[in-house]
């Protein structure tokens, strides 16, 4: 009796233990590169047998320095995600549901897609094929895909925005250089962040966070001060020494108010401005037109009282910031990039640029740097088989026409596809791109996809767009492939990171994107195969490393001591590479994680000021833009932000990241809407109530968080949740506020303006019974 009861109890408690088979086999470490965002961190994987059990930063890697962000730490959850497709999937039912897809082999998939591409080409309509690239990393996949497309003969190479465009365009307008500015936070003494997500979803989060640590406490006796200006107490604001709450959309006005005060008190870097800056006073530009001078514009439009009234910041605070900014060693102003989907207004980036110019920190330590391109070899020119007539065809998205600085215009692409004008799109190839979720107009994209006869989605996990595709081709996780990554945006020195496949074979039947395009090229036409003349990714990497060797500069990644040595030598004009042959470079670079050139030649103005005048042009003409229009009665400004774990529209698929959406609220697994207590009281909304947020375009439901972390008359909502795809953990969790965004364009760059939308907020009952 007692025995039987004991056995029963034991049986019950056997269910307490999780039956987990530990990994077996020898241990080894493999170096790779994280591509979960654009950060390009070198990583070190701990392998036990054929399993990857731990990911850490590669200590020799100059970007990660042995550290990782939470996404990188969660990368193993992406590798072993239970919802990665078993292999290629072909749609056999209605669009929009994973259940409509059936397993196919790679041969079937490649034959079907290549067959259609070959047909279109034979019919003389290669331009009907559109490539949309997204994704974070700067690996070979997108580069091979682009080469494939251009050799194929289509101009429609559309890259989804990744948040750096506004800053890059501002740099192009003022310095004449097409690059993402690299901010030397680590050497700065004073940083004025104009609503930037500097310490959250920046373009290279680990690099930026490391720099911040250095800025604050890395230099004995020299502690940097961070002042953050934004209507919301973001995570960056929490780390700042001071949070200056401005009215929504007035960060740029604040910056120009500070600039006006600096000029009025004569605190600007006089010699730098005199020698290198154009446009302080009224001047004639290269085309002979008169441009207003900055001084006049500031005096006319950004007087202290006006800025005070517009931003809601007391004048004495503006004056104090102006004095601090102009007296503290290296002062750096940072534009309002809030993440890969939220580039910020170009005018605000220009305003930040004005402050940096006045502080004289252009191409100076602690200032705005411009990275050199890594000296990779040019790929051999493709055979001239593509007809000249094809080259003349316009791009579907018309990029570059209305706004010369805009390289891609995904929203216009969606319209063009729907309208079928200037011509019909017959095939859409998406590479790690999810525009039906993560773009300025997700609904328009979803509708556009419906009209394209062949949609192919390539990614490691079926995303929202994949659900609308005809083919889902599973691409490998970064730990499953060899790769070569170039400098991440925002890093000031050229970096080439090398990755070896960590897993002996992919978890499922996934393939590297580059390999998929190699295979497609071989199937479509011989000239395409010749345009990609490498046997496989390994051969391509070898080709690149050979070119790197030939460039005779830089060094294999190494310890800080190695770094200092290389810097010293290069400063003295020497090159001491530590490798004698390309083969040696190949071996040693793979063993260390890659190659880089740590030497930065500050003050090389011929390189960084490539305007017609050879000077930094302040472009006061663009700064005279009208103030933000007052919203309609009863509407609130919609403030979007991207929490680091789910920035760029990915990350929600990993449960470890869903659990840490915002440490300030301890928010997880749901979309929330931050409302100031006064605003909430006016709307009759209590903390944790459900609210409907409604714009003229759409409405979403979110959970109210009543908090003084946001100013009154605004509602702040995180971007990154509300997905249909993305697997079990992302699908159906939260809501996508990008759907609310009204079509508006940044007048300077032509980028979508995601900060112009006003919404109504009202209390509702719990959505779908889930309380």
């Amino acid at each position: 009796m007692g025995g039987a009861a004991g056995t029963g109890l034991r049986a019950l408690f056997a269910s307490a233990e999780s039956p987990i088979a530990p990994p077996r086999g020898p241990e080894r470490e493999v170096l790779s590169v994280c591509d979960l965002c654009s950060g390009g961190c070198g990583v070190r994987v701990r392998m036990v047998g054929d399993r990857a059990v731990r990911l850490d930063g590669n200590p020799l890697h100059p970007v990660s320095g042995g550290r990782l962000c939470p996404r990188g730490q969660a990368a193993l959850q992406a590798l072993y995600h239970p919802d990665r497709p078993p292999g290629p999937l072909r749609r056999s039912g209605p669009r929009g549901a994973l259940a409509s897809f059936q397993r196919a082999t790679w041969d079937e998939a490649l034959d079907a897609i290549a067959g259609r591409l070959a047909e279109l080409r034979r019919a003389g309509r290669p331009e009907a094929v559109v490539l949309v690239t997204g994704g974070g990393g700067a690996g070979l996949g997108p580069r091979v895909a682009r080469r494939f497309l251009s050799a194929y003969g289509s101009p429609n190479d559309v890259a989804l925005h990744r948040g750096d465009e506004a800053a890059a365009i501002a740099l192009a307008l003022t310095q004449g250089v097409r690059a993402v500015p690299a901010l030397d936070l680590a050497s700065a003494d004073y940083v004025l962040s104009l609503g930037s997500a500097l310490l959250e979803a920046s373009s290279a989060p680990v690099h930026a966070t490391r720099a911040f640590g250095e800025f604050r406490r890395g230099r004995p006796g020299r502690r940097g001060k961070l002042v953050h200006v934004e209507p919301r107490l973001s995570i960056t604001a929490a780390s700042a020494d001071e949070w200056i709450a401005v009215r929504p959309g007035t960060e740029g006005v604040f910056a120009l108010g500070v600039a006006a005060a600096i000029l009025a008190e004569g605190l600007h870097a006089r010699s730098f401005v005199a020698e290198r800056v154009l446009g302080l006073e009224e001047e004639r530009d290269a085309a002979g037109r008169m441009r207003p001078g900055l001084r006049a514009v500031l005096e006319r439009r950004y007087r202290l009282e006006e800025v005070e009234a517009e931003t809601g910041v007391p004048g004495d605070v503006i004056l104090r910031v102006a004095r601090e900014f102009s007296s503290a060693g290296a002062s750096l102003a940072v534009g309002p990039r809030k993440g890969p989907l939220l580039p910020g207004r170009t005018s605000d980036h220009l305003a930040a640029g004005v402050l940096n110019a006045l502080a004289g920190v252009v191409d100076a330590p602690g200032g705005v740097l411009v990275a050199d391109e890594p000296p990779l070899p040019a790929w051999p020119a493709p055979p001239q088989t593509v007809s000249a007539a094809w080259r003349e065809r316009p791009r579907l998205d018309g990029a570059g026409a209305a706004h010369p600085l805009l390289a891609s215009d995904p929203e216009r692409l969606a319209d063009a596809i729907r309208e079928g004008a200037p011509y019909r799109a017959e095939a859409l190839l998406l590479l790690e791109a999810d525009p039906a979720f993560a773009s300025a107009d997700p609904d328009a994209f979803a509708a556009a996809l419906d009209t394209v006869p062949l949609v192919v989605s390539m990614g490691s996990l079926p995303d929202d767009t994949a659900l609308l595709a005809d083919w889902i081709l599973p691409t490998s996780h970064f730990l499953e492939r060899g790769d070569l990554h170039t400098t991440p945006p925002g890093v000031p020195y050229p970096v080439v990171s090398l990755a070896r496949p960590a897993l002996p074979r992919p978890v499922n039947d996934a393939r590297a994107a580059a390999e998929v395009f190699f295979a497609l090229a071989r199937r479509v036409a011989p000239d395409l195969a010749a345009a990609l003349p490498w046997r496989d990714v390994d051969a391509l990497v070898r080709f690149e490393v050979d070119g790197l060797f030939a460039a005779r500069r830089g060094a294999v990644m190494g310890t800080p001591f190695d770094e200092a040595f290389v810097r010293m030598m290069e400063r003295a004009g020497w090159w001491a590479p530590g490798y004698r042959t390309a083969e040696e470079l190949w071996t040693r670079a793979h063993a260390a994680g890659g190659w880089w050139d740590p030497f930065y030649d500050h003050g090389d103005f011929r390189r960084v000021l490539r305007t017609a005048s050879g000077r930094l042009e302040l472009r006061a003409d663009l700064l005279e833009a009208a103030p933000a229009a007052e919203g309609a009665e009863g509407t609130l400004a919609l403030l979007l932000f991207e929490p680091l774990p789910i920035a760029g529209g990915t990350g929600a698929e990993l449960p470890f990241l869903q659990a840490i959406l915002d440490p300030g609220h301890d928010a997880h697994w749901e979309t929330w809407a931050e409302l100031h207590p006064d605003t909430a009281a006016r709307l009759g909304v209590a903390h944790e109530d459900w609210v409907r947020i409604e714009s003229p375009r759409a409405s979403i439901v979110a959970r109210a968080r009543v908090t003084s972390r946001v100013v009154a008359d605004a509602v702040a909502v995180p971007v990154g949740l509300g997905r249909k795809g993305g697997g079990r953990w992302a699908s159906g969790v939260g809501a996508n506020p990008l759907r609310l965004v009204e079509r508006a364009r940044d007048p300077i760059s032509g980028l979508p303006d995601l900060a112009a939308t006003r919404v109504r907020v009202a209390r509702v009952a719990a959505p779908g019974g889930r309380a």
Partner: protein
Amino acid sequence: MARWGMVIDLDRCTGCQACVVACQVENNVPPAGPVDAARGRAISWLRLVPMQSTGPRGTRPALQLVPLPCQHCGRPPCTRVCPVRATQKDEEGFVAQIYPRCIGCRYCTTACPYTVRDFNWRRPEWAAPLERSLSPDVSVRPRGVVEKCTFCHHRLQLARDRARAEGRPLQDEEYVPACVQTCPALAMSFGDLDDPRSEVARLGRSQRAFRLLEELGTEPNVIYLAKGEWGA
């Protein structure tokens, strides 16, 4: 004998939470879904605690995020109350947790003033093939027992084994917990608090050093460095 301790510099910390995820990955913490998370049942050995305060003028709030692992108290209120000695303090400063002995009474969890102890409300699950990412160094806990930050004690054992195999003494920097290793801001340091030359001892002597809820006499081995002033 070393007294292992951690220093967390709040002036460097950006609240990125890499440490939080690193800890979960390193220690085979099971992922929780939305339902468990909403019910306060997601296990996390390290959390960021938001201390929000209204500013001096009562208008502008400030938010201080404090990474909170087990403080490995010198006088831990948790170990005293455990009826079966399933949680104990050892001479190197670790407050250890013995899973096969824990009866799951959750007395230690209620006694810990820092609320850093987690309980296995259900059997941990990993949707296949997620279980392949589990570390072989840390046991998977059964349902019904309490767990918490161990200061990555297994890493000390591994480092010791390595040193012993190579016939040399253990160096301080060979033993680094997962959270400390990944922190991109270098906000966390770890080492022997009793060794006056160690990094943590040096930082611990800083003017900015303080410990959480020190007034309770818990003598934590986690030291925080307060945010500094400009130029200080």
